[in-house]
């Protein structure tokens, strides 16, 4: 019976990732009319599955094996709290990273139960959370400059045609990363605990993510797509491409990092090039606050719940 709690939680997290993160991959392309929503969602499903199968294990191992020593109670509390926080954040439209919620919850639960928390892995993960958006920022500046130089000598319709192809390529990279990193983070704990095999987890996760994307992401995609592309496809591409590469590098290293934060890093990079005044500092402060608060909050909630359950001798 207890096995159902982490399983259902993972299903809900995968569904939430699908409903929110489809915009990261194909938001700009859908907004620009390069690909229809329906085609984008099918493509997302295929690429997420490929990502989860080919590279998902790296991140799953870090989250499920190298960070904490799991038991069923830690697993249930941490995934239940993560799912709850992610769903509430999505409902209230708060910029919460699923990675941070999951890592914060796992460490919080393990700490409360006195289980082993490997500090070296935790430090590496936190470093990745800092380095991945910073890397995306630097990459976005480089990509933007290189494209500026490369496109200077090309006729405009050629530039437009190349940009359209590159935006789709971006979508493909980010959709792949969604499977290899975002979904892998959500599934890491249940796979490493042995509840599901990597293949079973990838199939279940992809189906739920796809359902979330298909049923709930259209509005988010439209907002993100139109919001960014109405500014400028050139900048949008640079930021997104830099984020895609940054997440891909960290995925290869087995680090659970957020695509959304990397895209924000990329957008700041392009903003710096265009003038610091173009960056909305209020929005940036809100994102930074969420970046710090999410792992602390989930750590705290899991600690409290675990301590209450221990004191009531339920576990």
């Amino acid at each position, binding site marked *: 019976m207890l096995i159902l709690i982490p399983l259902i939680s993972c299903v809900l997290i995968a569904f939430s990732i699908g409903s929110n993160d489809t915009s990261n991959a194909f938001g700009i392309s859908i*907004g*620009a*009319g*390069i*690909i229809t929503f329906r*085609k984008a969602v099918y493509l997302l499903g295929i690429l997420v599955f490929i990502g989860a199968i080919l590279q998902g294990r790296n991140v799953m191992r870090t989250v499920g094996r190298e960070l904490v020593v799991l038991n069923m109670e830690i697993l249930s509390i941490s995934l239940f709290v993560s799912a709850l926080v992610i769903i509430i954040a999505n409902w209230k439209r708060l910029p919460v990273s699923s990675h941070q919620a999951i890592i914060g919850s796992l460490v919080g639960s393990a700490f409360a139960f006195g289980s082993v928390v490997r500090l070296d892995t935790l430090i590496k993960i936190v470093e990745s959370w800092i380095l991945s958006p910073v890397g995306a920022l630097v990459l976005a500046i480089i990509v933007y400059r290189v494209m*500026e130089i490369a*496109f*200077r*000598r*090309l*006729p*405009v*319709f*050629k*530039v*437009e*045609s190349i*940009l*359209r*192809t590159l935006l*789709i390529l971006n979508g493909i990279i980010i959709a792949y990363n969604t499977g290899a990193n975002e979904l892998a983070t959500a599934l890491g704990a249940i796979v490493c605990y042995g509840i599901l095999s990597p293949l079973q987890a990838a199939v279940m996760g992809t189906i739920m993510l796809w359902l979330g994307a298909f049923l709930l992401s259209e509005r988010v995609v439209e907002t993100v797509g*139109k919001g960014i*592309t*109405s500014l*400028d*496809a*050139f900048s949008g591409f640079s930021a997104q491409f830099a984020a895609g590469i940054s997440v891909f590098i960290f995925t290869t290293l087995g680090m659970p990092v957020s695509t959304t934060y990397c895209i924000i890093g990329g957008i700041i990079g392009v903003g710096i090039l265009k003038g610091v005044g173009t960056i909305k500092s209020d929005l940036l402060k809100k994102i930074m606050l969420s970046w710090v608060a999410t792992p602390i909050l989930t750590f705290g909630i899991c600690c409290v719940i675990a301590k209450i359950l221990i004191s009531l001798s339920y576990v």
Partner: protein
Amino acid sequence: MFWKLKKMFEKGKEKEIVDLIRDHITLIRDACEIFSNCIKENDKVSISEVCEIEKIGDSVRREIVLKLYEGAFLPGIRGNLYRLAETLDEVLDTIEDATIMFMMIPKLNEDIMSECVRIAEINLKMAEELLQTFEALRTEEDLKDRTIRIRILEEEVDAIKRDIFKKLMKTDVRNFWEGMAVYNFIKHLTNVSDLIEDAGDIIQILNVSLR
């Protein structure tokens, strides 16, 4: 599978729009040519072909706008393509207005008429330049020289226009409506060059909009 993927990303709408805009500018060039020949010959019958061309131009504009709304091209350049289609349509409307006025006005004196013919010829030259400028969008990275040529021709029209109005002030007018028709004819004839210049500027903006 490959063909399905290829179809998913094919750029049919973009090519259609580029072809339609080229057709639109070609219609302007044809209208300018007919107009120029007819006023040279004082042919008030064949000039009505311009009105037919304007009707075709309307349907071309509608098709361009519809395809843009269907999602052709990146949003960053859609606005400028829309403005270009609207401006090209205005050029055709103005040539049609000049044609209608030409059919109404009495025979102008030789001196003024020859200036009008010169303007019509410059308009034709500008339409040809505009067509070449648009074609260059697909092959060249810098259109500055081409748009400068269009601007120089427009300034030439402005100078002739001032000259015509000076001469018109010294001309006797039989009644108000006849004077009004002559004024409108000259106004529409000279507006064509202004609008072609605007279209050239939009093409130039289009060229730098994605850089």
